């Protein structure tokens, strides 16, 4: 039996649901085609009469705060992934809900991690109805097997801001974990044992949720500065013994990959950018925290030193390598979206040119501009890419939903988008005829760098022209696929179920693709 009968083909020819968890959904229409009308969502008007006049909003426990927020059946609860795999809050919230006998909650995290595996029992016993947010590892597997009652909804970081802002999803209670807070609710991620750098992913929640709780293990006297989260939005503050596991929040050190194959990809990517004229005075770039991306940043730095090139800014995921570039003067600014290691946290606290950003400043599509489009080149990953350069980041070729979208879709609006990927991973080809799930339309993907050749999107005639005569192995994407097929064999078509288990949203809130139940 199909869980979702109301489906239609969107502009990419993908079957998508027209209704998600009882609410109508708009199919993807193309880039920039869907423009919603009306006004942004607004939370209820609060009155100071309902808040302590001395500004001390501290209550004794998280349970108390949740009760006073009126936690009840069917509510939407949001949390954030600043503490990454060291998050101690999300599971506690649902432990409390279970204790209170509350049912059918919607969990709306900015991302999920393996540490959230215990929530599966609450999906099973009805405490949680469904999840709208990224699905990593165990939760993704659970969802892929069709065990979740509602439909999962995956959004990018920017798409999450957009959905909250547009009222597509209404948050009843936002629980914001912070490294540092005052009793009024001013909070940041810079100080304390659970310092995570910044709290940008919680910005929309603080602005639009009906009730906002800030939880910290480092309560300081008013004022807590800088106030990355403004206490004026906050209903309750809670001091706990431990809000996160420090060593799982940020790694002590991030290390560049030692894999020779990944280093080769990184080297090709950096060399490509140099030969394409992208690495030049005043340029900007964004590279993620994966081993290959870190290495790309390192090779960028090498090229910049060698040719005396000075960049304007780098967008992070910051880490010690980016901080080194800032401190060495190779770049003027780091515009940081999340901080990956202790060096990043230190730098953000000390260096006025290491700035924190949010999905609003960087990624929101329903806005009057965002930073992603200003970036000259962004280095991204993918699990699969098809011959039209459409790319997948959420599912694997066996159909399993295993990753979130993160800022990936939003970054596609950078001036040049480069995806370095191995041509195949343990015989699993990356370039295939049709991706399992389309997360990003190929017209926004410019270059695929593999260890066996580099394919430039035929739309980018400028890049093709610039790389003429290059010693880099420039090939067509068809040639790359043929090469993989020769080595690995031509893959058979995977057989997927006929039941939709998750919807993938595009940056404008439309549905770009569906994820199907695995057989």
């Amino acid at each position, binding site marked *: 039996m199909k869980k979702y009968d109301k489906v239609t083909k969107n502009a990419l020819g993908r079957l998508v649901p027209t209704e998600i968890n009882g609410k109508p959904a708009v199919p993807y229409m193309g880039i920039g085609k869907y423009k919603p009308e009306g006004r942004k969502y607004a939370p209820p008007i609060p009155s100071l009469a309902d808040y302590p006049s001395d500004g001390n909003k501290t209550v004794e426990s998280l349970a108390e705060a949740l009760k006073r927020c009126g936690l009840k059946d069917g509510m939407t609860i949001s949390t954030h992934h600043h503490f990454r795999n060291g998050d101690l809050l999300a599971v506690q919230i649902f432990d409390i809900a279970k204790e209170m006998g509350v049912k059918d909650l919607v969990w709306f995290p900015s991302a999920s991690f393996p540490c959230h595996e215990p929530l599966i029992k609450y999906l099973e016993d009805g405490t949680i109805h469904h999840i709208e947010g990224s699905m990593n590892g165990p939760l993704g597997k659970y969802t892929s097997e069709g065990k979740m009652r509602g439909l999962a909804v995956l959004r990018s970081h920017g798409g999450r801001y957009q959905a909250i802002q547009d009222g597509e999803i209404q948050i009843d209670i936002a629980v914001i974990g912070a490294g540092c807070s005052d009793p009024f609710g001013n909070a940041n991620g810079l100080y304390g044992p659970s310092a995570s750098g910044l709290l940008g992913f919680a910005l929309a929640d603080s602005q639009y949720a009906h009730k906002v709780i800030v939880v910290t293990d480092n309560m300081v006297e008013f004022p807590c500065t800088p106030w990355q989260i403004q206490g004026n939005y906050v209903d309750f503050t809670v001091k706990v013994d431990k809000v996160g596991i420090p060593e799982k929040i940020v790694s002590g050190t991030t290390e560049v990959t030692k894999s020779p*194959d990944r280093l080769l990809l990184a080297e090709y990517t950096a060399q490509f950018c140099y030969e394409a004229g992208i690495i030049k005075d005043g340029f900007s770039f964004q590279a993620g925290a994966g081993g290959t991306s870190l290495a790309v940043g390192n090779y960028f730095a090498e090229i910049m030193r060698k040719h005396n090139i000075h960049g304007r800014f780098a967008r992070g995921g910051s880490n010690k390598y980016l901080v080194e570039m800032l401190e060495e003067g190779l770049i003027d600014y780091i515009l940081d979206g999340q901080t990956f290691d202790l060096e990043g946290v230190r730098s953000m606290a000390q260096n006025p040119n290491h700035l924190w950003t949010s999905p609003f400043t960087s990624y929101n599509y329903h806005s009057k501009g965002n930073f992603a489009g200003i970036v000259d080149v962004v280095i991204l990953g993918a699990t699969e890419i098809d011959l039209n350069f459409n790319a997948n980041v959420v599912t694997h070729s066996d159909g399993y939903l295993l990753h979130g979208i993160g800022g990936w879709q939003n970054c596609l609006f950078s001036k040049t988008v480069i995806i370095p990927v191995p041509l195949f991973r343990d015989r699993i080809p990356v370039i295939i005829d049709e991706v399992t799930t389309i997360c990003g339309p190929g017209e926004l993907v410019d270059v695929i760098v593999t260890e066996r050749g580099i394919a430039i999107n035929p739309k980018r005639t400028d890049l093709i022209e610039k790389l003429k005569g290059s010693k880099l192995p420039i090939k067509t994407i068809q040639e790359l696929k043929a090469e993989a097929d020769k080595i690995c064999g031509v893959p058979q078509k995977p057989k997927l179920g006929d039941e939709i288990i998750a919807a993938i949203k595009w940056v404008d809130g439309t549905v770009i693709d569906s994820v199907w139940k695995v057989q």
Partner: protein
Amino acid sequence: MSINVAHAGNTGDKVRSDCHVTIELTSSGGIELELNSKVVVMYGDSIKKLVLDSLSFFGIENAKVNLDDKGALPWLIMARIEATVRQLTKTDKELLPKFLPQNKYSTKKDQYRFSRLYLPGNTPSLMINAGLHNPHGIILDLEDAVAVDKKPEAQLVVRNALRALDFYGAERMVRINQIPKGLDDLKYIIPHNVNLILVPKCESADQIKQLNQKIDELKKQHGINNPIWLMPIIESTLGVVKAYEIASAAENVVSLAIGLEDYTADLGTQRTNEATESFLARSTVVNAAKAAGIQAIDSVFSDVSDMEALKQTVIKSKAMGFDGMGCIHPRQIKVIHENFAPTQEEIEKAKKIVNAFIDATEKGLGVVSLGTKMIDPPVVKRAQRSIDLAVNMGLIPINWREEMLTQQ
């Protein structure tokens, strides 16, 4: 004694691009295949067919087969199946993957051998992308990098790799086991276009003669005309004493290498960064090689994370007269190439010499001179090699002479 269950291959969480095969011969019931593969969604059908075809090739009609696959390429699955079958039945049949046409090339006696990348002969995951890092040679190692009980499996992996793995133009090398044991390795490599054989722990010209005798036999038997070069490795005190005898033992000995781990053990000492303990040995090997008119190849540098120390080692090695060295990690290749390459100073000098030679030839002069100095033909030859290499490595443009003349 005959057994009816056998297995081959590797398994475990860290194993990649490999597989583990268990076959139990049964008396009836046909082939029962249990396939556990991480690529079953994409290649399940073709893997099943490969297993059934392979068993039928060996005439096995009834068996329980378990294939635990971690993304092994077909040529590797074939090697694992064959290794299993060989334990169960006596067979002369070889289950050969298709020979890739791009692997059909020969190499020259004096071609560059700056870098040669060692790959363990029973670890396919390291082989697949090796050629992409552009080493001058790729060594599939049957000797020290393979556990004793895995040697028969490794022979088949190496054979199949020689046929089906793209070497991307790198010289195709195999390090066989020490002579005489290594003679058994030859039938797995000679018919499959091996370019060069490394001869470990070589201690006499006689070992080279034994080896060549067997190689010639196999070449004749398989109708092979391609040259097969030898690189004896001196790894003992006795080997050092016999270095020249070995270097000049046969026409197909193209380079003489030194292996310092075993040598220092033989000396009863340890390798140090200063390498004073091995100076005599290295110097002797260089001298013997040059006396025999062949290349001298240095040992590997084992700290794969210290590129600066590697660079210093390469510079010293080149200064001693070595023509190349071994690598155990692909990232070492670039450093080795850059530092064995001619320096800017060497290139400038070579340009002048070659230019003077071309000038003299054009003018019909028998004697080449630069300023007041006469230049001997070997000097010209060496300069020409430096120029070719510099062009090859992109250090100077191919039309360097035009540029030079217009600048004057």
